[in-house]
């Protein structure tokens, strides 16, 4: 990825199109869940809005969620976070996520998105554990972590193994060195997260975790999101009745491979043309120019969710 030609094709990091595709796919899934009987509008959304509040904006506008809480752990950002709060209904707490999870109401259903930008740490796993204990039946839990080699400047699996043994020893189970190869870090991260969740749910005999999401994407760093519903047989039945037509991003089996969000780089004019043919049959090519088939396929998967960016002169 470091050759000049490829770098030139890379998009600006701050726009993060893959992340936005993920958000839109989550919205799509939540709409399907709502249709299947989950009262998503009445859920409380808790996330890390930072100063942008992008997830809060779309969950409020597209899902109608009103009860929202943004957690900011950096006290130096308090002023900016308060200033940028887009809606009055968003409550803001300046503290660690851990402290908020322990106080989420057990009488309410939640969407809790632990959207970290660092690799799995013992603190993150502890948060997942607490969420597993705290979240009421029907709640949705999402966890995002960085899935690159966690030791800075080293891709050596041995360094990665040492890192995981330090941060996640009790949730690792039996491993071998290949679990720490770069390509397997998302899988290993997900495994320790799921083990922490199971541990936090220990003793909740009538409840289970039903996976829905397992995303991989990279707007720079490779990120992994795992998520699903904590619920009983009632929720299980609703999930089974959910309309999954065209929801190619859902991952409802614990052993499934991740859904990789791939955003091909296209110009605005190219997108207009492609959009007019979407959804296209496999192997279709535009007549005016050539694009690799895999890019066309990738675009067909995500065009509904892909934002269009333009410069606004305000």
């Amino acid at each position: 990825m470091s050759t000049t030609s490829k770098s030139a094709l890379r998009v600006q990091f701050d726009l993060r199109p893959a992340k936005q595709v993920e958000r839109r796919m989550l919205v799509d899934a939540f709409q399907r869940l709502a249709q299947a009987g989950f009262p998503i509008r009445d859920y409380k959304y808790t996330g890390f809005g930072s100063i942008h509040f992008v997830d809060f904006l779309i969950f409020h506008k597209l899902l109608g969620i009103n009860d929202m809480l943004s957690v900011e752990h950096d006290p130096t950002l308090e002023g900016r976070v308060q200033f940028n709060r887009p809606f009055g209904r968003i409550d803001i707490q300046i503290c660690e996520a851990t402290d908020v999870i322990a106080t989420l109401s057990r009488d309410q259903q939640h969407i809790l998105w632990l959207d970290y930008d660092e690799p799995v740490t013992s603190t993150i796993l502890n948060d997942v554990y607490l969420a597993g204990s705290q979240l009421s039946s029907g709640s949705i839990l999402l966890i995002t972590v960085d899935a690159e080699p966690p030791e800075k400047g080293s891709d050596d699996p041995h360094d990665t193994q040492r890192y995981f043994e330090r941060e996640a020893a009790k949730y690792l189970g039996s491993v071998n060195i290949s679990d720490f190869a770069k390509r397997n870090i998302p899988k290993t991260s997900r495994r320790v997260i799921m083990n922490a969740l199971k541990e936090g749910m220990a003793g909740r005999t009538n409840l289970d975790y039903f996976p829905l999401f397992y995303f991989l994407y990279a707007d720079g760093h490779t990120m992994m999101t795992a998520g699903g519903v904590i619920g009983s047989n009632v929720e299980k039945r609703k999930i089974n009745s959910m309309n999954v037509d065209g929801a190619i991003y859902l991952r409802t089996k614990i052993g499934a491979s991740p859904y990789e969000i791939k955003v091909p780089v296209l110009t605005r004019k190219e997108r207009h043309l492609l959009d007019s043919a979407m959804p296209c049959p496999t192997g279709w090519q535009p007549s005016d120019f050539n694009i690799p088939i895999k890019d066309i396929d990738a675009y067909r998967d995500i065009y509904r969710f892909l934002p269009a960016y333009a410069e606004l002169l305000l």
Partner: protein
Amino acid sequence: MKTIQADARPEKGLFLQMFTRDLSLEDCILDLLDNSIDSLIKTRGINVSDALIPLGDNDAGDKPTEAIVKPAVIKVTYSTRHFEIEDNCGGISVKDATDEVFRFGHSKKAIVGQLGVYGIGLKRAIFKIGNDITIESKTKDQGFRMHITVPSWSKNPNWTLPLEVIGGTGDSNIAGTSISIKDFGPEVTERFTSGTFEGNLREMIARTYCLFLNRYVLVSLNGHEVEPLPIPLGESEYANVAKEEFEEHGVKVTLYAGLAGRDTSGEWRAIDAGWYVACNGRLVVVADRTVETGWGAGMPTFVPKYRGFVGLAFFYSMDPLLLPWKTTKQGLNQESLIFQRARTRMATIARPVLSFLDNMYSSQEIEHEAQRQVAAGIKPLDVRNLTEKPAVTFKAVAKPPSEVMVRVQYSAKQTELNRVRKSLGKSTWPATRIGRYTFDHYLKTECPE
């Protein structure tokens, strides 16, 4: 194919040896106390979930029972040659003695008590302590006396004990049981003569039965009454105690977490910190700071900055087999579903308290002023006063820091000081008074609020 039967009967001597191996002498004596208290619970119809109801005289939730008016008495005495425990807790009926009390393990039809669980405590305790055992018990109407010497009893292949039926007391207030044991093994004699044994046993009784002592029962050890050692939880107007209740798997669980009261020197004692766990009012875990109660698994590993933390977990059930205790009643059965669930809830309810302590000690070991003031104001409380309170999370409100005083010092020329004195017409004022006066003057005239 022919099926034959192999002999699988226990060999008495070996059985007794193995059976008594895994518990300490202190645990044995606590087992005997459990038995006495259980007898009290049965004969006086005490509901252990009320063991925490406040003690206030006019409290509506406090139903005055016979037990409150006049607690039963259990006397434990021992010397190097003789051990005795004697109670007026109601006694064991001849029928119970014949059918249940001396069986190893409860039968299915047995009506079990609330502290005795497995039906082995009494037997294990007496066989552990010594070889010459006498038990005498009288209810109001009837009584029995049992005496055996273990060496000759273990030679007899029959698993029966001789009961001599005797008369009752005629008065339920003095009905009770006494167990007298002689002929100790060398290990037991050694423990009884140890310089720390009595103190240790006294502390264990004081902690284990802190919710029963002085209320339902008085326990004396070698003639001295044991005072309960309260669970060191505290609160103030600035910091509450978190509470959570739930009921699952036939067990009612109540959790509390908060800050400890500070000792006379204004410190927290690390030895008191941690989780306290009670099953039907009897403590089975005291000030635990290990992975058993979730430290390092769901909660952070215990470090000294958490020495102000106290948590309580109460488990109640009318069926004591559902509770997460072990046969020794020390420690917790980690496989218990209700405990697995409770442990994750304990981690959650503890979190805000631990965060408070994290903030209090965020820079090395210097206590931050706002948190220190909250901590200093914590007053110990009787946990029985918490039962009526609603579920709540821990909140500590930092008091506004009191005015910080700064010392103002400077040097001035004697001649100039005298000029000020002259101007003020106060030739006798010392320099400090001049300094104060001029400061106040400037403050008043130039810095209006």
